[in-house]
């Protein structure tokens, strides 16, 4: 399947047209190279004919030197053409990649939930890389090589029309045949690639689970699977190689046909005395030259198939739009933000409600503790607050402003979130705290660390803010330290509303106090929503909400609920502190 033709045009317009000066230089270099490839063999003809006529030696030496100069100039032109085409290609693809990343980062959570990072890397980097060729080479190579073929045939045609016609006809036949053979070869190669991907996916996964495999006696089974996958790869890659060899050998068989045709026609001419030996050699030389551009064009067309698939996928990605509407940008009030759920309902799928008719309001500066089982809708409730999703019914207001009316950027600036999983980057501590934002000064970061009582922790870092976090999701940090970083991130924003999702669940005792202290500092003078499975975390809340199956099971002031022996909350406190199980 091919994308509509207009897409190629718009891609070229958006990414190549701004570089038109480079394209002009590129075309110049390319045309020079083509001209030289046609002209230089003429020197050989002159040389041979002159030598045959017993002309003075200095003429021959001059011809030899001229040939050398032409060859050198051609190389310069080729290198220049390569340079400019690479430059155009890289610039265009880099711009496209940046645009795609920007686009993807602005898509809502339902998009990211369905796709693994690996898949998106393949889209943003892999598919675009296949396009590099389209931008930098496709038109130029196709046009350039067609010109070269045409030039050779025209020059031969001036010498003898029949030879030119024969060459042109064989070229067309060979070209069609090559395309056919490639069509057979490409699916086999894709199958081979897939078998490789399967094998290495298998190995990687099993390497991460050696403990499970070993202790459950699964080694013979795992080895068997390895043997099966390796055998499959051998068969599929071999098949791909054999089919690929078919396409390759065709070109050389045709080179023999070319030469044979040239020989027959040359012989006739020389016998008739209408052709010199030098011209005969020239035609022989050209027939060998002709092979190269035809192979290149067919290869370009194959690359083009890859690029076409890439363009389709990229286009598909760009067509996905965030489900979140863009509001008029009503500003949020300064300071702590009140939170209001006005009869809010929400479901990830239309027929499956996660939250039903939630109504509550948290005054500015107060802390709400949210309780409930896994799946009761706690996390979803907070996700609505920073607009990872919009409610399906009802309205959410922060500081009296409907979320859909505020700008998304401001909303996320004013709401600070510590999620269950702290996501860290393989980058420096500074970059992890600032999200690569260079405008946040070190002084400000250090001031926040100070404020949260983290001086001692900071002093232990080997390179201060330049300390690199190790790769892997934990960044080589303990769970507690990761939590600390997440708190600093939020603090750097100075938000009016703080959401702590299961904040204390990752703590080990050593850093527990450190984090408690930081959380206290963070909640001072801000509205807070705190989620925890464990009751202790909730004890710092002013109000309590207990969720059950997406609905409000209980809601009120914490102290009041605690004192009421019939409340769910006081029951939970008793059971939780005692024993929930058995």
């Amino acid at each position: 399947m091919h994308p509509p033709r207009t897409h190629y045009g718009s891609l070229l317009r958006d990414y190549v047209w701004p570089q038109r000066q480079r394209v002009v230089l590129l075309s110049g270099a390319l045309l020079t190279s083509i001209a030289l490839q046609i002209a230089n063999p003429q020197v050989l003809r002159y040389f041979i004919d002159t030598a045959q006529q017993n002309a003075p030696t200095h003429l021959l030496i001059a011809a030899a030197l001229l040939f050398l100069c032409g060859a050198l100039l051609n190389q310069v032109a080729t290198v220049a053409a390569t340079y400019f085409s690479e430059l155009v290609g890289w610039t265009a693809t880099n711009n496209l990649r940046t645009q795609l990343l920007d686009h993807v980062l602005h898509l809502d959570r339902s998009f990211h939930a369905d796709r693994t990072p690996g898949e998106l890397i393949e889209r943003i980097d892999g598919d675009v890389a296949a396009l590099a060729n389209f931008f930098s080479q496709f038109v130029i190579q196709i046009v350039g090589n067609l010109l070269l073929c045409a030039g050779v045939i025209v020059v031969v045609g001036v010498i003898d029309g029949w030879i030119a016609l024969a060459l042109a006809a064989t070229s067309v036949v060979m070209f069609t045949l090559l395309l056919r053979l490639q069509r057979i070869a490409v699916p086999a190669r894709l199958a081979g690639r897939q078998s490789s991907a399967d094998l290495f996916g298998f190995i990687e996964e099993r390497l991460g689970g050696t403990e499970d495999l070993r202790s459950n006696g699964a080694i013979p089974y795992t080895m068997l699977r390895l043997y099966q996958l390796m055998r499959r790869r051998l068969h599929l890659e071999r098949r791909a190689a054999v089919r690929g060899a078919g396409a390759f050998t065709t070109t050389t068989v045709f080179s023999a046909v070319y030469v044979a045709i040239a020989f027959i026609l040359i012989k006739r001419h020389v016998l008739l005395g209408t052709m010199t030996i030098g011209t005969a050699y020239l035609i022989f030389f050209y027939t060998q030259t002709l092979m190269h551009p035809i192979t290149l064009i067919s290869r370009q067309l194959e690359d083009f198939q890859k690029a076409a698939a890439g363009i389709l996928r990229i286009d598909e990605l760009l067509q996905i739009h965030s489900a979140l509407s863009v509001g008029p940008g009503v500003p949020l009030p300064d300071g702590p933000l009140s939170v209001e759920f006005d009869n809010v309902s929400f479901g990830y799928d239309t027929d499956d409600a996660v939250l039903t008719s939630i109504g509550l309001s948290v005054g500015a500066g107060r802390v709400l503790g949210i309780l409930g089982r896994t799946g009761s809708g706690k996390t979803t409730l907070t996700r609505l607050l920073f607009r990872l999703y919009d409610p399906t019914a009802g309205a959410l207001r922060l500081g009296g402003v409907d979320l859909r009316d505020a700008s998304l950027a401001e909303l996320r600036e004013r709401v600070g979130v510590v999620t269950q999983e702290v996501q860290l980057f393989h980058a420096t501590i500074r970059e992890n705290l600032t999200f690569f934002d260079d405008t946040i000064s070190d002084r400000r970061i250090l001031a926040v660390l100070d404020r949260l009582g983290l001086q001692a922790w900071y002093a232990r870092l080997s390179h201060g803010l330049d300390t690199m976090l190790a790769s892997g999701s934990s960044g080589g940090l303990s769970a507690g330290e990761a939590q600390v970083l997440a708190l600093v991130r939020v603090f750097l924003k100075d938000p009016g509303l703080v959401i702590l999702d299961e904040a204390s669940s990752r703590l080990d005792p050593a850093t527990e106090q450190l984090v408690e202290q930081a959380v206290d500092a963070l909640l001072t003078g801000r509205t807070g929503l705190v989620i925890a499975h464990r009751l202790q975390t909730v004890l710092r809340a002013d109000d309590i909400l207990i969720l059950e199956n997406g609905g409000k099971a209980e809601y009120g002031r914490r102290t009041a609920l605690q004192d009421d022996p019939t409340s769910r909350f006081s029951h939970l406190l008793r059971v939780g502190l005692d024993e929930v199980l058995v």
Partner: protein
Amino acid sequence: MNTFYYYRRLIGSAPWSWCGDLGGITLSVLFETIPGLLAREFFNGLSGAAPARLNLSTIIVLLVLLRLPWVLSIVALSMTSTTFVYTAGALLRTNMFRHILHRPGAQALPASPGEAISRFREDVDETLWDLIRFNDLVSFMVFAIVGFAIMVRTNILITIAVFLPLVLVTLLTQQVRRRLESYRAASRASTGDVTGFLGEILGAAQAVQVAGKEDSVVRRFSHLSEQRRTAGLRDKLFSQLLESISTNTVNLGTAVILLFAAQQMKTGRFTVGDFALFVYYLGRISDFTSLFGVLLARYRQAGISFARMVTLLKGAFPGDLVAARPVYTRGPFPTIPQPVRVPHEQLQRLEVLGLSFHYPSSGHGIDDVDLDLPAGSFTVITGRIGSGKTTFLRTLLGLLPAERGHIRWNDQPVSDPATFFVPPHSAYTPQVPRLFSDTLKDNLLLGLDETGVDLQQALSLAVLEDDLRQMPAGLDTVVGTRGVRLSGGQIQRAAAARMFVRDAELLVFDDLSSALDVEVEAQLWERLFARHHQVPVTCLVVSHRRAALRRADQIIVLRDGRVVARGRLDDLLASSLDMQQLWASGDRHAGAEQQQAEHENL
């Protein structure tokens, strides 16, 4: 062990395909000398410079017909080369994979799986394709020798004049090529930076969005892309330059022929046919010299690749990398041995004496842990975070190498715990179990014969039936990479079912309930105890859960890697301060433990 040794052994592992490839490519290249000779005959006949030995039709028939055996040999070569690369590659991969699987399971890899995989993929494939290209080099050399001989016989002076610049240029580019290697490495590294950054960002897209930092992230990406462009451009430009030098050698050679032939052509000592032959051969011979340069560099690289593969063997004899072993690329696959209970090995008593292990990196570990498990007993190991509970289980099962200590199964010493503690003797569920991207059933069975096991009972024990009913494909549900399509609790229960279905005499599980909901957890313990009541299978369990502690026949309390108390719950609550504290903090730490374990496993 040098590169040559590895290569020799690898050739030995698939000798026929390698020899076939070498013979085939040499033969096919020899065929390619003929068109040059035919062109000479043609032009000599045309100019009348030399007596025509072949007429036109003979030349043309030969020209076209001789392509057929050539085509056949190229197609055959594509078979021999892939057969060799993927058969010898299977040997390298099998040896590395076997070694890793047979190492103490908890410490199997020296690097992350992602890093290790590049050794399984690129290092193996590239070194073997280089070996195939070595065959190409041999064949090109044969061509060069034959071509050189023909050229010398034709005209010795011009031959020498042509070959001198060729040799000089080859030597020169050799110096430049090293530069290219460093440019290429820089280009690869910058690509790694870009894709690495993309992976980090896309893996944490939500964090970026929630922080509202999309723009600063995109700016950084654009900056990294810029650096990649510079490195990529330099690499490409340089390699293009190098390529153009080698192309130019042919043109330079042609010009040299012209210069030297200018005089001799007039006298007829060098004919137009000779000229055609020289130009044709020159192109092929310069292919040889440039490939020679490339392969010299690749040979150095292969040495590095082999060293990288050997590190995966972690201290084993390096030659094991290429040790001969069946790789089953043909014929029937091996059958999987099914665990069979042997009556005299039926567990009566498991004793552990003075078991010790310390992690080399931190020095933490366990010291002199003793344990006595009578058949059918239920033993709980408990203790604070970092007290050595998991380390003890791993050392007992041979997943970590014990430094000291004895293990006795029915009074018989267990010399290699890693091989012994597998079904039917024991089965294990780690704290953070791993599932694999197969169907749920495959994950549970892992090669067990379905007809010989009670899958339904295992599913019921692990409280998985309700979950299964909600999956449209049931047991055939594909669980996704590392089980991502299941919830954390489902993964843990699936791993428990995987342990139960193995019907082992000793069940070992580490903090089984850490990711479970309260209700599901209660069900799981109930069913387990009910089952234990009927068939008293021996259990060794790490847990803080009161349900487990209450039920235990004995509790072992660990602190800093040592046993500080042991006995039944009531006695310990009366006598052990550690036990009192653990009991009081109760179930609270379980979640933190889970996180801690994930952290350690990364």
